[in-house]
């Protein structure tokens, strides 16, 4: 009986799964491709394209705040639509899709020594569903009433009340688009998780995986558990809107008329939304953590400090982020005792996060730091993340949060910590892996220009916002008008921020130009321009061909961080190079460079 059940299939994973899909035509090679590398580029291009739209929206908002009435097509409704779409696109359709769909697809198989993701067909469906979600989102500009203006959190009841912009069709398309995104992401996420767990090459243990893969892996697991809450919230709100149910709608008197809804709970939506929304912060932060660890180690020519600690910190942050969601709801009217619990869990997250920051700094300590563009962005990330994290301590405490709620301080905080910081990592990662993806280097002078304008500009945009917030300037106001508590200098600061935002935005065009120009005109990169250890740099071809590794898969003998090993011929030892005693497995660390 036991033999019958666990007979020849017990080791099916050993051989049968290694079949690789081979495209036979141009369409299946480049468009409906099942190759994770092509899917990654499709994901990344779509995400960057829609992200540019969100960038333009932020320009328009800033123009309205600094020069009210200058752009006559921006009325209050349009302003709220810009805010909503800017936030939604940036958080979900750009950063999440780019980190997991883009970098996840490209790097997981290559870094783990796999030929492809484990389910290439499902992976392809994932991208096309994501594209459909993006198209539905964009379509909301072309329906009567335009896109929804409910704010990116889509709080009911106002999201579906009749005076909210986009109430006619925009909110429906928004919810449908999110549902599609969750479905598409789930298909991709299954691939990322199973590839990491079951698709590694010989010798690649979990504790030899580069931290990039660890970050993407844990973020994907979190997304698989957090997106269901968003899915459910969207389905229920869709029913409230289309079927007239009252899940989130209490009895509402609108313009003197009693609406047919009664007995629903708006707070329920907030709980569901933030049960997704807070893990979402770490879904974009953990891949950034992982990538930044690899960038720092590679460009400082030094092993990452405390690899095991870094892995466990990622895991612990991932777990803790599921029990902090209500710190977004201190002023929502929920039971105040909850605030006590959620403030404590929120502050506990600072511990593993701080461990990571210390380890990055200690990796840099006495390293051979090369200020290449990826390294510049990685360093900028650390500083920015610490800044955003410190204001998080303000907002995580109930008594400090209450007066700061719904002010520009909150805007500055989350833009620093989950806007600027992950996007700096995205830039760094693109500068780092672009040579592998295209075979050519990005132009260094343009990269330096892009970096300094973006980095300094981001601070000039968001630092003054903290000050505005402490003064009490509220967020999401179309026009502040003459409010007595705001000194005229507040408005001058608004103009300054807007000018900086326009400049930083323009600098991104330099980046886009660099991306396109370098495909043909960049300096040839060779297989391993950064002299890095991880497997994606050891492929026989650059860019890697279909199947990634030629005839034989690489065999892994060491961890990903053998940089500047004393006595080694070069200052890096690739993971697939045989050799004695990987240093991290040695019983005691010698002093000097590695301690």
């Amino acid at each position: 009986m036991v033999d019958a059940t666990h007979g020849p299939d017990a080791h099916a994973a050993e051989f049968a799964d290694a079949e690789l899909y081979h495209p036979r035509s141009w369409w299946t090679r480049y468009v409906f491709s099942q190759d994770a590398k092509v899917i990654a580029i499709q994901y990344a291009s779509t995400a960057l394209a829609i992200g540019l739209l969100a960038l333009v929206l932020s320009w328009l908002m800033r123009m309205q705040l600094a020069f009210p009435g200058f752009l006559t097509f921006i009325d209050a409704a349009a302003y709220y639509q810009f805010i909503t779409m800017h936030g939604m696109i940036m958080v979900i359709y750009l950063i999440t899709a780019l980190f997991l769909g883009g970098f996840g697809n490209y790097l997981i198989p290559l870094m783990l020594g796999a030929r492809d993701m484990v389910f290439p067909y499902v992976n392809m469906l994932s991208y096309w569903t994501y594209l459909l979600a993006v198209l539905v989102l964009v379509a909301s500009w072309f329906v009567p009433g335009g896109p929804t203006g409910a704010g990116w959190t889509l709080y009911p009841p106002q999201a579906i009340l009749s005076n909210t912009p986009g109430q006619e069709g925009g909110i429906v398309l928004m919810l449908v688009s999110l549902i599609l995104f969750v479905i598409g992401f789930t298909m991709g996420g299954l691939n990322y998780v199973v590839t990491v767990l079951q698709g590694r090459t010989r010798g690649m243990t979990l504790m030899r995986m580069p931290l990039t893969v660890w970050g993407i892996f844990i973020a994907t697991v979190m997304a698989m558990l957090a997106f269901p809450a968003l899915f459910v919230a969207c389905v229920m709100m869709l029913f409230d809107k289309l079927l007239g149910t009252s899940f989130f709608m209490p009895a509402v008197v609108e313009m003197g008329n009693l609406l047919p809804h009664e007995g629903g709970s708006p707070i329920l939506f907030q709980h569901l939304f933030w049960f997704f929304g807070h893990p979402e912060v770490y879904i974009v932060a953990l891949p950034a953590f992982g990538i930044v660890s690899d960038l720092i180690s590679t460009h400082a020519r030094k092993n990452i400090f405390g690899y095991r600690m870094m892995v466990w910190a990622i895991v612990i942050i991932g777990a803790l982020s599921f029990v902090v969601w209500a710190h977004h709801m201190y002023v929502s009217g929920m039971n105040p005792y909850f605030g006590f619990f959620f403030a404590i869990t929120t502050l506990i997250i600072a511990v593993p996060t701080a461990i990571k920051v210390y380890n990055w700094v200690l990796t840099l300590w006495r390293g051979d730091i090369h200020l290449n563009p990826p390294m510049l962005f990685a360093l900028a990330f650390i500083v920015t993340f610490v800044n955003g994290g410190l204001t998080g301590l303000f907002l995580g405490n109930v008594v400090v949060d209450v007066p700061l709620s719904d002010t520009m301080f909150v805007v500055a905080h989350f833009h620093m910590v989950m806007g600027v910081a992950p996007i700096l990592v995205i830039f760094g990662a693109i500068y780092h892996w672009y040579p592998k993806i295209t075979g050519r280097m990005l132009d260094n002078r343009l990269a330096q220009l892009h970096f300094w304008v973006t980095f300094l500009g981001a601070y000039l945009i968001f630092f003054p916002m903290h000050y505005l917030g402490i003064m009490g300037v509220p967020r999401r106001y179309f026009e502040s008008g003459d409010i007595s508590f705001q000194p005229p200098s507040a408005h001058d600061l608004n103009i300054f921020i807007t000018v900086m935002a326009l400049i930083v935005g323009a600098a991104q065009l330099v980046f886009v130009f660099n991306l396109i120009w370098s495909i043909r005109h960049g300096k040839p990169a060779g297989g391993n321009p950064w002299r890095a250890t991880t497997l994606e740099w050891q492929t026989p071809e650059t860019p890697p061909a279909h199947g990634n590794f030629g005839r034989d898969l690489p065999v892994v003998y060491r961890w990903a961080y053998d940089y500047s090993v004393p006595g080694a011929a070069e200052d890096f030892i690739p993971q697939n190079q045989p050799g004695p005693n990987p240093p991290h497995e040695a019983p005691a660390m010698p002093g000097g460079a590695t301690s």
Partner: protein
Amino acid sequence: MSDPAVTHTDPQPGLTGFVSDWSSDKTAFKTASWGKAMIWIFLLSDTFIFSCFLIAYMTARMSTSEAWPNPSEVFALEIGGVHMPLILIAIMTFVLISSSGTMAMAVNFGYRRDRVKTTVLMLLTAVLGATFVGMQAFEWTKLISEGVRPWENPWGAPQFGSVFFMITGFHGTHVTIGVIFLLLMARKVWRGDFDTGKKGFFTSRKGRWEIVEITGLYWHFVDLVWVFIFALFYLW
């Protein structure tokens, strides 16, 4: 240390085995193929969807401003002049649980490479599943004819109808998808695709007998979810 890693040592029991599996290379779950690992992770994610639905339902039920209708009266039937509370739901539950039994037998015969018995049992499972969906359609029809709508019902809190249609509808969709998969896979079993390793139309992966078990895992999950819906929606 020239050997890349400790691979494929004999399986060890208990915590030691767990640690050695997870610290080994290639795979973390030594006996699970890619497909089986995938379905487990998918089901974990789906569990969160149903949990969110059920928690949202419980919140709505506790916070609604009107009284919640009594499910055992709403779902009662008069059969032969006898008033029987929840009788239809009891039969539905019995049918669905039975289909889990036939599915488990199909998986067993699948691993014995018994094409005929596997096909018959999978078809039987599909018939039981379709019966369940059919009874659910009857239940929906009955409630709709009694005036239950997603936005109102004759007996109390309007959320009763909303939750009923949403959760049973979502679960019924799962069952329907399961029935379709069972029929497709039963056809493959019958044709012998899993013996010849015929490639799938979309995925171009070789067909393998474990697909029967993967289908079974999904089916058992749908059953298990029903038990929670039954307990929390109908019995509460």
